[in-house]
C-alpha cells in the first residue's frame, strides 16, 4: 500500500478526505461510467479524462475538466422538456458533481469549502440521476456531518421560535366557513372502508388518528429542521402565487430559506414547495411513514412520490389538479383547503396555457423540476409552466363578473391541522392557503 517511495496520488490531508475516499471506488478502473450511446463520445472521453486526473491526484485539472462536463451536460438537461431528458445525461451531470465535490474537499476542509462541496452534491441530487449506488447521498451526508461538527462550538443557541420573532397571526385571515360544506372526517377507517366509500367513488375525506403519532409530529420544529437540513440546498418558489408574473424559482440552503422567508418579516413570499426532500435527506424520512392507504393503489411502494411543502403563513397554491391520488399529511401549522370536483371543471374556467414569467427560471408545477441560481444553473424545464390547466379564477377573491358560474360551483373545504391527513382524489381541484407557518408532506400514488 503506502510502502511506495512515491507518494500515493490520492493521499490527502484530513479525515474528511479519508472518509470520502472510502466511499469512492478505489481505482479508476473500478469506477464504471456505464453510459449508453445517447451520450456523445466526446463527453465520455472528457469524463474518463476527469476520472483519470482524479485518480492521478491532479486535482486542479480534474476540477477544470469536471467543470466542462458539468457545463455541457447542463446544456443537455436544458434541451427539450425535462421529462424527455435522457437519464444518462443526468448521470453524466451527477458524475461531474461527484468529482467536483471530491476535488474541492481534497484541497481544503474549511467550512466554506465544505459548504460549497455540499451545494455541488445537492445540485447533483436535484438535477442528476443516481450513480454508483446513490453515492451522492452518502457523500452529502458525510459533508453535512463535517459541517455540523465544525459549527457547533461556535454557534450559540439556535434561532428563537418564530412566534416570538414575528406577530403574524393578527394579519392572517381565517376564512369564515360557516356557509361552507366541510370535508367529512373519519377516525382510522379500515382499508376496505376507505376504498369503498372514498377511493373508488373519488371523494375527499380527512383521516384522523392515522399520522398523529408519527415522530415528525413531535420532533419537527424550525430548530430541528435547521439542524437536520440547514446547510442543504433546496428549490424555493418566490412570489405570491405561481400564476403571478413576478413568480420565480431559485435555489438556496434551508437555513437561508428560513432566515429570508420565514423569520424576520420577509418582504416576499417564499415557499419550499413540491420538493422530494426525503430523497435528498434520508434522515428526515425516518420521521415519517407511508400511510397504509397508499397500498390500495396499483403502483409499487417505490413509485410513491413524497414531497415536502414548507413555508410561512400566507403561501398559496392556486386551484389546480394532480394526475395521481394524494394523501396530504399536515405536520406543522394549519392550512385552509378548498376542493372542487372534476365534474365542476367548467365552472372553474380552466385553460391550457404556458405562462410567461419574466424571471430566470420557472419550474413546472406538477412535474419534477429544479432550478438554478448559480453555476451550474439548473435545468429547469423551461420558463413556461408546462402543460398545466389553470383555472383563471382566484378562489378566495373571485371576479364574478368574469367568472359568473364560479359562484354556483359546489365545493368542500376544511382547515387541516397537525396530525391530520387529507385524501385528495386524483384530478380533484384543490386550492391551499397556509394559515400559519406550515409543513406538509404529500404522498402521490396511483
Amino acid at each position, binding site marked *: 500500500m503506502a510502502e511506495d517511495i512515491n507518494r500515493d496520488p490520492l493521499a490527502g490531508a484530513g479525515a474528511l478526505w479519508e472518509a470520502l475516499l472510502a466511499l469512492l471506488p478505489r481505482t479508476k478502473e473500478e469506477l464504471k461510467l456505464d453510459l449508453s450511446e445517447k451520450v456523445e463520445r466526446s463527453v465520455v472521453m472528457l469524463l474518463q479524462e476527469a476520472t483519470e486526473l482524479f485518480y492521478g491526484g491532479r486535482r486542479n485539472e480534474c476540477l477544470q475538466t469536471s467543470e466542462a462536463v458539468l457545463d455541457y451536460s447542463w446544456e443537455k438537461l436544458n434541451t427539450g422538456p425535462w421529462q424527455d431528458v435522457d437519464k444518462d445525461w443526468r448521470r453524466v451531470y451527477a458524475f461531474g458533481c461527484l468529482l467536483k465535490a471530491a476535488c474541492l474537499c481534497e484541497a481544503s476542509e474549511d467550512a466554506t469549502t465544505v459548504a460549497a462541496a455540499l451545494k455541488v452534491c445537492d445540485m447533483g441530487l436535484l438535477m442528476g440521476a443516481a450513480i454508483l449506488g446513490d453515492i451522492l447521498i452518502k457523500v452529502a451526508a458525510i459533508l453535512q456531518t463535517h459541517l455540523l461538527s465544525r459549527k457547533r462550538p461556535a454557534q450559540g443557541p439556535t434561532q428563537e421560535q418564530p412566534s416570538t420573532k414575528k406577530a403574524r397571526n393578527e394579519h392572517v385571515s381565517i376564512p369564515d366557513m360557516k356557509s361552507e360544506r366541510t370535508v367529512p372526517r373519519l377516525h382510522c377507517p379500515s382499508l376496505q372502508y376507505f376504498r369503498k366509500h372514498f377511493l373508488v367513488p373519488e371523494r375527499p375525506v380527512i383521516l384522523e388518528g392515522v399520522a398523529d403519532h408519527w415522530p415528525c409530529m413531535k420532533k419537527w420544529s424550525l430548530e430541528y429542521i435547521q439542524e437536520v437540513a440547514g446547510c442543504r440546498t433546496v428549490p424555493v418558489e418566490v412570489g405570491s402565487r405561481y400564476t403571478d408574473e413576478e413568480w420565480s424559482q431559485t435555489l438556496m440552503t434551508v437555513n437561508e430559506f428560513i432566515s429570508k422567508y420565514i423569520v424576520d418579516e420577509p418582504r416576499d413570499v417564499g415557499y419550499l414547495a413540491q420538493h422530494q426532500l426525503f430523497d435528498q435527506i434520508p434522515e428526515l424520512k425516518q420521521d415519517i411513514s407511508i400511510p397504509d392507504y397508499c397500498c390500495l393503489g396499483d403502483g409499487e411502494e417505490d413509485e410513491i412520490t413524497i414531497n415536502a411543502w414548507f413555508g410561512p403563513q400566507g403561501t398559496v397554491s392556486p386551484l389546480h389538479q394532480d394526475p395521481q391520488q394524494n394523501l396530504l399529511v399536515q405536520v406543522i401549522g394549519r392550512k385552509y383547503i378548498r376542493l372542487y370536483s372534476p365534474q365542476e371543471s367548467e365552472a372553474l374556467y380552466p385553460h391550457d396555457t404556458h405562462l410567461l414569467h419574466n*424571471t430566470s427560471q420557472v419550474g413546472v408545477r406538477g412535474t419534477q423540476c429544479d432550478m438554478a441560481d448559480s453555476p451550474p444553473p439548473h435545468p429547469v424545464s*423551461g420558463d413556461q409552466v408546462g402543460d398545466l390547466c389553470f383555472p383563471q379564477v382566484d378562489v378566495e377573491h373571485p371576479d364574478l363578473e368574469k367568472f359568473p358560474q364560479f359562484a354556483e360551483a359546489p365545493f368542500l373545504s376544511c382547515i387541516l391541522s397537525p396530525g391530520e391527513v387529507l385524501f385528495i382524489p386524483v384530478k380533484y381541484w384543490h386550492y391551499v392557503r397556509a394559515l400559519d407557518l406550515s409543513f406538509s408532506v404529500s404522498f402521490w400514488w396511483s
Partner: protein
Amino acid sequence: MAEELPGAWFGFGFCGFGQALGSGRARRVLSPEPLRAPGAGLDVYRVSASWSYTAFVSRGGRLELAGAAGGAAGGCRDAWASEALLVLLRAGPGPEPGAELQAWAPGSALRGEPLWVHTVEAEAEGDDGPGGKPQAGPLPLLPCARAYVSPRPPFYRPLAPGLRARRLELGAEHALLLDEAGQVFSWGGGRHGQLGHGTLEAELEPRPLEALQGLPMAEVAAGGWHSVSVSETGDVYIWGWNESGQLALPTRSLAEDGKTVAGEAAGLHEGGPDVKSTAGGEDGAPTPFIAVQPFPALLDLPRGSEAVKASCGSRHTAVVTRTGELYTWGWGKYGQLGHKDTSSWDRPCRVEYFVERQLQVRAVSCGPWNTYAYAVEQEKS
C-alpha cells in the same frame, strides 16, 4: 470595391479538445489568437465549430478537422460540424456539376464510408464571393435551398415548396430561416422564447415573425436557445433566453453578487470576478431582469454602429459591424467573448484585440463555446 489585404482567422474560447486555438496547451483561450495548424496556412473561407472539434474548409476545397475529431479531405465545398454528425458538401463523383452531401461520424477521421450520402442537384452558377449571385447560404441549408440537414434523424429535411430560403440556422431546439425577401421564419421548441412569436409555444412548421415583417433582414443567427437577426440597414434584433445575458438585456444571474460555487471554492478563474453587468437602477429602483424575451427586441450597439454579420454560440452572441469591429456578449466562462477574462456580459462589448492591432473584422463564426473571427489589416490611407 477597395482592395483588401488578405486576412487571417483568429479564435478564442473553449479548446479543451485541442481545437487549433492558441498554443494548444490551454483548455481555453481568453483573447483572440491566430489559428494554429491545421487552420493556419489554409485559405480558410468556412469555419464550422462543434463543441469538441472544428472543421475548416479552404477555397481550394480542402477540409481539415481539429479537436476530438481529426482528419482531412479534398473536394469539399462546405462543412457543417455537430457532435453527432459531420456533414460535408463535396463535388459530385462524376463530371456533372452536381454535388454530394455526406454525413460522417466525427470519430471516423473521414476514413471508411460516410454514414449516408445524398446527391444534391446542381444549382445556378455563382460563387458566394462578392461579385456573383448570392447562393443559398451555408450548411445546414443545402445549395438547392429546398432542404436542410439536421443532426437528429431524419437527417435530410425538405422545406415547404413555397419557402425560398436564403439562410438557415439551427439552435438546440429551434430553427431560423431567412428567405429571399428578407423575411425571418422560425419553428421548433419555443420554451425559452427563441421563436420570437411572443409565446412559449412550439411551432411545427416555419412561421414568419410578424414583428419583423416589413423590415428586410440580411442575416440570421441561432444560438442554443436564442436568436438574432440583422436588418439590411444594420439593426440588430434579438430574442430568446437571456440567462447569461446573451440578449444584451439585464439578467439576474449577473446582477447578484457573483458568488458562484466554482468561483469561490476552486479559484479556477483567472482574471476578475465572474460578473459584470449593466448598472443597476441608479435611483435604487429594482432593475427589471429579463430571463426570456419572447419577441424581437431592437438592440443598440455602442457608438451607433451598424451590424453586418452575426453568429451565436450556445449562450453568447457575436456581431461584426460595418466598420470592422467585433462585439460580443453573453456567457464568457471559457473566454468565448474574447475580453481577456472569463466574465459574462449582458451588454455588447467590443473585442479590443482587433482595434489595438488595427485589424478589421469581416466575418465571425461561433462554436458552442468559442468564437472564430476573420480579420484583415486596415488600409493605410
